[in-house]
């Protein structure tokens, strides 16, 4: 099996602050890979470095066998798309859903826009009724569905997910997670998903990396984690925390 994303010795520095300190990982094609950590662990920075939104100071990123340079070309964005954490901030406030979905098609010169937009809305379970609404006329879950539709409309092979459900209610979270699993199965997508919640990552991913302070703590399979076969104390702490409060 080939690798979809290979990251080697990645360093990201913001104003002398080392957000990522030499992180390496390999995501196989068609795999769902999770990054778990608390705030400041560098997990979101890693995603942003892959998309070109965070400056890489050293290390390499290879996507679908192509080594990435400083800038990303249009072809890259047809392969890799991202869903942001906050559905309230990731949709343009003055554009209808229709306009939001049309934009990527216009940039990449797709001709059959009408059909694609309708199909994309159907795929994320929104349907035509939502096509001409503005973001403020949508609930958080509906917004995140629009964001997913926008990411899928260019038919990428890799989807980067930055805490896609952490701003949503638990019941809506379940719906969005199910949707993500469904589109992944249907389109044979590769997922790289970031979350602070171990339960979500073990639910969604086959393999995961635990991160802390810009470094990798350990790499595990989901079944290792479920069986509590972990080496690092930090991971054990996280596991304990995810089980809720225990009175001493």
């Amino acid at each position: 099996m080939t690798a979809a994303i290979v990251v080697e010795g990645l360093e990201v520095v913001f104003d002398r602050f080392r957000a990522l300190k030499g992180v390496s990982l390999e995501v196989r094609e068609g795999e769902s890979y999770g990054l778990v950590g608390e705030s400041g662990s560098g997990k979101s920075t890693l995603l942003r470095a892959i998309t070109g939104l965070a400056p890489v100071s050293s290390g390499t990123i290879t996507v679908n066998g192509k080594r990435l340079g400083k800038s990303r070309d249009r072809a890259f964005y047809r392969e890799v798309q991202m869903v942001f954490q906050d559905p309230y901030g990731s949709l343009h406030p003055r554009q209808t859903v229709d306009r939001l979905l049309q934009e990527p098609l216009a940039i990449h010169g797709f001709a059959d826009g009408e059909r694609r937009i309708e199909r994309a809305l159907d795929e994320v379970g929104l349907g035509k009724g939502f096509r001409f609404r503005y973001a403020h006329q949508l609930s958080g879950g509906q917004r995140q569905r629009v964001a997913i539709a926008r990411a899928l409309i260019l038919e990428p092979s890799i989807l980067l997910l930055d805490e896609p459900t952490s701003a949503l209610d638990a019941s809506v979270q379940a719906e969005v997670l199910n949707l993500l699993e469904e589109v992944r199965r249907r389109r044979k997508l590769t997922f790289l998903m970031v979350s602070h919640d171990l339960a979500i990552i073990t639910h969604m991913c086959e393999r995961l990396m635990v991160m802390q302070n810009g470094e990798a703590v350990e790499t595990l399979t989901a079944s290792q984690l479920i069986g509590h076969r972990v080496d690092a104390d930090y991971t054990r702490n996280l596991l304990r925390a995810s089980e809720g409060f225990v009175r001493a």
Partner: protein
Amino acid sequence: MSAEAIQSRREWLLSERPASRMQARLGRAYVAWRRFSANRLALVGLLIIIALLLIAALAGVLAPYSPTFGDLKNARLLAPSAEHWFGTDDLGRDILSRILYGSRWTLYVVILVAIIAAPIGLLVGTVAGYAGGWTDAILMRITDIFLAFPKLILALAFVAALGPGIENAVLAIAITSWPPYARIARAETLTVRNSDYIKAVQLMGASPFRIVLRHIMPLCISSLIIRVTLDMAGIILTAAGLGFLGLGAQPPLPEWGTMIASGRRFVLDQWWVAGAPGFAILIVSLGFNLLGDGLRDALDPRSGDQ
């Protein structure tokens, strides 16, 4: 139209599920209109501006006399009467007619200044804000140079260089009024450039040009429209000021500022000569200010999207 039809049309406009691009756009405009029309003073402002437009369009029909030729023999400096509502000036011209025709020049000035200055400011501000770095530094220092001088003085300097005349006055005012717009557009751009929705467009592979033009500018436009409207009064006054100083419109053009200038010699004895155009300037400036305030309530993105 029956009450029912009105009701159903309103529902169509306010629909949470617009069925077409057109309906979504009209619905949005309708919500803004409702917010605007809830403000009585703003409606007064709008009425004044509409009246100004109508007067300018129909000046030829409305004006009882010629604006440029007067009856020097019999009608010099007549006080307001049934025949000459606002009196006559030193050349025997009917002041009412001159004011009606003068509205055309007022509109000519404000509209031209707005369509020259606002786009320049918008472009400079958004490009500087989005590009950052050197581009930002250079563009903003140029802006600062313009902002460093009082507007009227700078306009005077330009007119002095270009030569007096209403076209040059327009040009001079436009050149001096874009910097505040650039500042506003830049500030708006800085608040949105790091937002996720702009990042999302970057991740679509959009070029910086496209992002600025299609995603950032539309967000800056409403605050710019508000600001330009509020500035209209200032533009009228600057134009009048230039006219008053003899650097704007040249006689016998019935421009309000020039009229005040020529009336100032008899302001104590024949107050109406300078008073009438002064009053016209006051009313129109007030109209633009009220309209601007109303637009701020209706369009301000910060007042929420509901």
